């Protein structure tokens, strides 16, 4: 049963990444027409929800007993990242307007996508915990938040590295990047909150509530920053890439997705083991001991 779920998830992952996500990315950032005749919004939704569903099924399939699956996913992820980086750094030609700087897009774009996917996963896990009360989902939520925070942090660093040579400043107040930064702080706050609550039930409940509240904020932050920014200055988005070169982008997207999934599975496993310890039933006390106590 769990084995079937695992392969179903892998198939869903592949389909989502191939048909949706990268087509959209290719279209938006590389001006390559890989649209398959679908409008952008539909493709984005298919890709996003497909990828998310895949990871959720993967997490359900993971009964925390089998270490080989996350390991295999992680190794595959590293291999994909190596391939992507090789093509992105050495094979792909430099871009005509931005030159070598543009190469960061090959990791920046996939990181952006999967940071949001990880946060969405945390939100989904929070909702499942709030309604079901199953502490395994608390473990998955914690894992997703942590991995999401790492990705968001990487994204902010990449954004700064990109902005300095391109715009001459470290931070260009791009709505997507700014939203990620706000999210980074919001989720760091939730991780901090978790450290200060000892009771596992309360900790899970509060962080689930805080995760839901923070996640609902994402679109509002995005639009407010977008309006705020557009009323000040009009800046072109980094999508003026003329030559389509999809191999590094696609390989890196697969790599980050697989690596992220592996990390979430492993991290959830650690959390679940800790919780199991914290939620253990009372130790049996034999009658002799009880008699002595009186």
């Amino acid at each position, binding site marked *: 049963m769990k084995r079937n779920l695992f392969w179903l998830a892998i198939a869903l992952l592949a389909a989502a990444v191939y048909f949706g996500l990268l087509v959209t990315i290719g279209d938006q950032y590389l001006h390559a027409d890989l649209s398959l005749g679908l409008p952008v919004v539909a493709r984005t939704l298919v890709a996003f929800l497909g990828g998310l569903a895949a990871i959720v099924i993967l997490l359900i399939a993971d009964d925390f007993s089998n270490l080989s699956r996350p390991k295999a996913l992680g190794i595959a992820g590293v291999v994909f990242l190596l391939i992507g980086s090789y093509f992105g750094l050495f094979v792909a030609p430099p871009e005509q307007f931005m030159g070598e700087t543009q190469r960061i897009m090959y990791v920046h774009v996939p990181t952006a996508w999967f940071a949001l996917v990880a946060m969405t996963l945390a939100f989904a896990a929070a909702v499942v915990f709030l309604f079901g009360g199953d502490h395994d989902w608390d473990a998955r939520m914690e894992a997703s938040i942590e991995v999401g925070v790492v990705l968001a942090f990487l994204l902010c660093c990449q954004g700064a590295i990109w902005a300095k040579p391109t715009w001459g400043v470290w931070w260009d107040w791009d709505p997507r990047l700014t939203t990620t930064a706000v999210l980074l702080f919001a989720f760091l706050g939730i991780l901090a909150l978790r450290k200060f609550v*000892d*009771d596992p*039930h309360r900790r899970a409940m509060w962080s689930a509530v805080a995760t839901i509240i923070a996640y609902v904020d994402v679109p509002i932050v995005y639009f407010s920053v977008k309006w705020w920014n557009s009323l000040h200055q009009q800046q072109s988005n980094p999508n003026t890439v003329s030559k389509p070169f999809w191999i590094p982008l696609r390989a890196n997207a697969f790599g980050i997705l697989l690596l992220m999934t592996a990390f979430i599975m492993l991290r959830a496993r650690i959390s679940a083991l800790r919780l199991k310890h*914290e*939620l253990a*039933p*009372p*130790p049996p*006390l034999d009658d002799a001991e*009880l008699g002595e*106590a*009186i």
Partner: protein
Amino acid sequence: MATSADVDAKNLARRYGRRWALADVSFTLAGGAVLMVAGPNGSGKSTLLRTLSTAVRPDGGSARIGGFDVVREREDVRKLVALLSHASYLYDSLTAKQNLAVVADHLGRSRANIDALLDRVALGRRADDTVATFSAGMRKRLSFARVLLQEPRVAMLDEPYGQLDPEGFVLVEDVVRELKAGGTTVIIATHQLARASAIADEAMLLEAGRVAWRGKASEVPQR
């Protein structure tokens, strides 16, 4: 006035961090009875009362109050139970009268008999002073008035004698007899074995979160 078991706990357990404050407690109590719960510090008396009154959720086992489950039918249990807790549940910046008025408002009752209640616990003359100026014993008296205002079917009194003067002891005993006469089931957690066993029907001794002895209040083993 229930005749069947009013309080029914099965394998009740509750932990704080790594420590099991309540490991395994099962007992039943008939409606209208007065139960004394005794045991050394940390034996789980307070935790038992807090679990039964739904202030904390149990980590294991189950309990029913008046037929309602303390986890699944929490709201119904709360309508039946009043808890006299270690914490006074009072607002320091409000007066005695205002504190009771807040409770009456939230219960949807009239504020009419607040003055009578304050007289009942001998706080009539301090009714309009803020709780911040009260001594520990006076706070306890006001908490008692709070319990009486709730008109509970099951009253849980955690250390009712604590911080009270001898007159207060008499007040506690009068109040318990009054509650019992009105058909209220009473559970008293206390160290005052001699005093409490005089007003209690039944007794239970706790030890390390488990029931060590259960029987008639008049037959409590002397240590």
